[in-house]
């Protein structure tokens, strides 16, 4: 096990170094095309026009992005006005929206999923709505949310809510409907009351499937929050990306992209750990 882990880590590092190396080569300033003052133009004017500056590809080299990393991570929580906040504060806003929207979705999806999973009638009645609503891009709800809620912050939370809802709802219903007949029969012969049965038999039996749904929901929510914040603006990691794009500060954009990836991975790991906790071997 251990040498395998060492080998894979070394290989990952090698791939990373090679990637950085290629990036560095691709963004190096071209030496051959040395800047020349065009004929009939004063040197001062040419400099003002930027014609004497060394030609660059425009895409930042790794070192510049590295400096952005150092700059943002060394002071993550500063707040200098609406367009200049530390990355920690921006992430906090995004995670707060995702957490709240996700929590609301769980509060709706898990009980409703229980009802759908336990009653074939409710399942058949709600199935057409779920089938139609599920494939709608969460961002398509945004205009409607902005119009009815009239608050961009809450609209963002609503979009997270609506995109987290479906995977959790469907997985909960699936998990509850799939609880082994025998376990339900045990509960019946022991005259277990419905609430106790739901909490001590059905919930633990369906928990792995429910958490799979929650994990998918969280993944989608983290994808959607970036786009939603680009639209509503104000705060959050998505707004940060958009703002830095408007500043044409590509190193900052790349930094934000990497941070979005890392946070998404941490969220996914968290749910994977929860899943491991409730999974049972038969």
């Amino acid at each position, binding site marked *: 096990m251990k040498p395998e882990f060492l080998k894979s880590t070394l290989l990952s590092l090698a791939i990373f170094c090679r990637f950085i190396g290629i990036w560095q080569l691709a963004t190096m300033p071209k030496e051959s095309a040395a800047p020349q003052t065009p004929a009939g133009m004063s040197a001062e004017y040419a400099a003002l026009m930027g014609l004497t500056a060394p030609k660059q590809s425009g895409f930042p080299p790794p070192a510049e992005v590295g400096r952005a990393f150092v700059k943002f991570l060394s002071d993550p929580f500063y707040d200098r006005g609406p367009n200049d906040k530390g990355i920690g504060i921006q992430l906090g806003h995004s995670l707060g929206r995702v957490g709240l929207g996700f929590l609301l979705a769980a509060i709706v999806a898990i009980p409703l999923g229980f009802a759908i999973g336990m009653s074939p009638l409710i399942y058949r009645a709600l199935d057409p709505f779920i089938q139609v609503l599920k494939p709608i891009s969460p961002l398509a709800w945004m205009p409607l949310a902005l119009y009815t809620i009239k608050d961009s912050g809450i609209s963002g939370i609503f979009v997270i809510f609506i995109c987290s809802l479906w995977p959790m709802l469907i997985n909960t219903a699936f998990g509850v409907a799939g609880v*082994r007949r*025998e*376990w339900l*029969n*045990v509960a*019946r*012969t*022991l*005259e*277990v009351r419905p609430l106790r049965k739901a909490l*001590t*038999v059905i919930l*633990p*039996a369906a*928990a792995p499937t429910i958490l799979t749904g929650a994990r998918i929901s969280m993944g989608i929510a983290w994808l959607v929050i970036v786009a939603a914040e680009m639209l509503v603006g104000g705060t959050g990691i998505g707004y940060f990306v958009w703002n830095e794009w408007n500043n044409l500060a590509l190193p900052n954009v790349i930094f934000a992209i990497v941070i979005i990836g890392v946070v998404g991975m941490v969220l996914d790991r968290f749910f994977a750990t929860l899943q491991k906790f*409730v999974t*049972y*071997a*038969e």
Partner: protein
Amino acid sequence: MTAPYLLIEDLAKRYPGSSEPVFENIRFGIERGEFVCIIGHSGCGKTTILNVLAGLEQPSDGHVIVDNREVKGPGLDRGVVFQGHALMPWLTVLQNVAFGVRSRWPDWSADKINEQARKYLEMVGLGHAMDKKPSALSGGMKQRVGIARAFAIQPKMLLLDEPFGALDALTRGTIQDELLKIVQATQQTVFMITHDVDEAILLADRILLMSNGPRARIAEIVEVTMPRNRTRAGLHHDPQYYRIRNHLVDFLVSRSGGDEARNATHPVTVRPGLEADANAPATTDSPFVRASTELAA
């Protein structure tokens, strides 16, 4: 004459979409403290009868009366041991048994519940495995947990659906011995489905023989006339054993599908174990008995 503890009257089960009932005209009684086995080929509806007794399925016709009250649904007065043990894999062995105990006595403290669960797990010889998850147990151990769970709620009656069907012969023998010991000690009323003729003879006071389905009935009731203190090791030394065994195997092999068995309206009670006694002195020294024993062996 008082009514037996459990009485089944004119029970029939029809499944939707099928013209013929799986079984019909099922009637029998079980006395308090009696051990009754039911044997029949697959598809004759044994499990359905047991599920009706447990209250898990509704019969199409007829009714079940336990202790002068009609059975309408599942209840804690009947403990069920399921074919596939039906343990909850997310609970430990102790928690599985305690789940039943807590359902039976919701007012008990956690200590008292665990104490009761431990007592019955010790009884089936699982004192050492209480904190394991069912997935870490062998098939025989899982089935023992199921038995402990059913016994721990101290039901008036036990229903066992082929509890040892999935076990290898050696394990089955050990658990049969344990079940025999427990049932003899507790004087439990038991109704059990089995496919194993020897198991039925070892455990039962009476064996119900079912004809083949559809329209299955109880064709015969065999009384096991051997003394109650049987052991697996001593069983085959009793000449009655072979007579009963031959009778059961004959029925299953050649008579269960015949018209006589299938049209039985009122099952006859037979005592094949004593048949020889009617013709010859009831001693094992009798040449007749010895001969028949040797033949059978």
